[in-house]
């Protein structure tokens, strides 16, 4: 038999059912709203994070390689063989090389601070090229170049500067390294992929030798390679640096660390997505529950509709559509909420805002689907109510 109830009328009837119980409809759709908001926010934030990471990698370049001696069995650092820089420079695709030497010189703001409170800041002896090779920038002052390596001046990593409470070099500032005063001539911007350098102070090789008798024995070397051959360079770097014991050299690409961090965030994202799905599931059950209650309460309405000519199918569609509407409203609110959260987060953390449209559409579809699934049982129940039973006094 042909259905005579027009689609637009069916929609009106379902809308009437939702509108007639506004408070309940709102509460019912909250669950779906939260679930969808969580999913949209999580995908939005992770997409924004990814977009931002790509931008970061783009600016840093992925062709930087870092090599240092493998930490010894008891945490002692092995030395790299003499003349290691020269060996590395001879690798074809290597474009730039520089080295640093890690020391255990103690850093203090003033001599009022005891020598035992170093604060996790290490002193790194560096050659002038370091900043260019790792792609760093200065937020204040200048780097140790052009002979400044011979005199007691120092440059601070970004974390070091804030730990020591130094934000500006407008006034001359000195710090203590061991028991020698050093003038601060520069502060670095955050080096996103070198957290160890952010926590360092830098001095030149010349002054390290004259004041502390530290030789130019690199503990870390930084290499920029032709991007096309980066894998090959990574492969030959350790054997070139220490032909006898290549396994004593640890080679890494700092950009890998970022990517690993991203992978960890993906795992976290999946966890949040899982939680969002649970909220959706619970929301769906809440809708089913409310719809069943609604069917029981509205026997009169069902009876009247059957008496004025509604078929079972038309009753079924009415309740099914009502359930979909409930869930759809929740889904829509959830999408807006999730987009708002993403926008707030990206503004707060100052990263690129990006929400994948496909996932938003998917989220809305998911909400509608959940509404439909939740409505099936109540709708069938509604359509099975006998008209005579429904109009009983």
């Amino acid at each position: 038999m042909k259905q005579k109830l027009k689609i637009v009328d069916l929609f009106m009837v379902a809308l009437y059912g939702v509108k007639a119980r506004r408070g309940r409809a709102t509460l019912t759709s909250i669950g779906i709203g939260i679930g969808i908001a969580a999913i949209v926010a999580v995908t939005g934030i992770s997409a924004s994070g990814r977009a931002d990471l790509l931008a970061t990698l783009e600016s840093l370049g992925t062709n930087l390689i870092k090599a240092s001696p493998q930490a010894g069995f008891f945490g002692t650092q092995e030395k790299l063989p003499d003349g290691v820089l020269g060996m590395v420079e001879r690798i074809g695709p290597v474009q730039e090389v520089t080295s640093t030497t890690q020391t255990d010189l103690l850093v203090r703001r003033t001599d009022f601070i005891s020598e035992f409170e170093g604060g996790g800041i290490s002193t790194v002896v560096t050659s002038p090229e370091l900043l260019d090779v790792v792609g760093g920038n200065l937020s204040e002052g200048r780097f140790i170049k052009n002979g400044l390596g011979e005199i007691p001046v120092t440059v601070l990593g970004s974390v070091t500067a804030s730990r020591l409470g130094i934000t500006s070099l407008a006034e001359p500032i000195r710090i203590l390294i061991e028991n020698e005063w050093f003038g601060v001539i520069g502060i670095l911007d955050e080096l996103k992929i070198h957290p160890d350098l952010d926590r360092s102070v830098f001095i030149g090789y010349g002054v390290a030798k004259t004041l502390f008798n530290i030789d130019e024995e690199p503990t870390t070397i930084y290499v920029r390679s032709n991007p096309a051959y980066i894998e090959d360079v990574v492969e030959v770097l350790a054997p070139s640096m220490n032909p006898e014991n290549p396994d004593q050299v640890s080679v890494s690409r700092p950009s890998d660390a970022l990517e690993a961090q991203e992978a960890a965030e993906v795992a976290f994202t999946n966890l949040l997505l899982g939680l969002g799905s649970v909220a959706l599931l619970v929301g769906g059950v809440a809708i089913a529950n409310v719809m069943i209650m609604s069917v029981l309460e509205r026997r009169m309405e069902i009876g009247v509709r059957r008496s004025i000519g509604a078929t079972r199918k038309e009753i079924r569609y009415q309740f099914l559509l009502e359930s979909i509407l409930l869930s759809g409203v929740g889904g829509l609110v959830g999408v807006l909420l999730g987009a708002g959260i993403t926008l707030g987060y990206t503004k707060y953390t100052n990263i690129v805002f990006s929400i994948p449209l496909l996932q938003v559409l998917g989220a809305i579809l998911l909400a509608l689907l959940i509404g439909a699934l939740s409505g099936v049982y109540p709708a069938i129940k509604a359509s099975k109510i006998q008209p005579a039973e429904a109009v009983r006094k």
Partner: protein
Amino acid sequence: MKSKTKTVISLNNISKVYKGPPPVKAVDKISLDIKEGDLVSIVGQSGSGKSTLLNMIGLLDSTTEGDIEIEGQDISTLSDDELSKFRGEKIGFIFQSFFLLPGLTAQENVAEGLLYQGIKREERLKRAAKVLEEVGLVDRLTHLPKELSGGEQQRVAIARALVQNPAFVLADEPTGNLDKKSGDNILKILKDLNKQGKTVIMITHNLDHAKKFKKVVKLVDGKIVA
């Protein structure tokens, strides 16, 4: 009653048993012919089976035994969907508690009577306004049920039953929830409808009301006694 008038509703030994435990025989082998333009009242105490009988005549309920023919159609051959459409087109129901949808205005409530006939909304509302005028509620179109008196609500419900121009009007204690004046008014509307040619069947336990109808069927324990 003139013999040439044709029988439009024919009940042939119909029974209704509600499954127990214990099983209850609400209607017990009733046979009854209702002719075109009849004005019938069914009286009986509560539990006498009169609502069950009316629901079976109105195709809201099925029979356990026996056949019902309406306008020569054996309704046992109709599918559930066909029964729905038959009710929608041929039968107007009036209930004791009015059963109006609380969120809709009087006019919208009446227009609902045409919802399942595939008629456009504007046309439904237009026809609803016309029928409301006929029952004297032309100034109540935009009122919600809660803003209307009991008598007015019942007149809206009658308008909803009439809007699709049914051949039969079935009323289940339509005056049961009303004061005497409103009740008399409803009764008059039903009699007027009958004068216009509709077949009207009303349940009541008010014998005074019943006596105003041409034909009175008295039920006791699911059987016709008069």
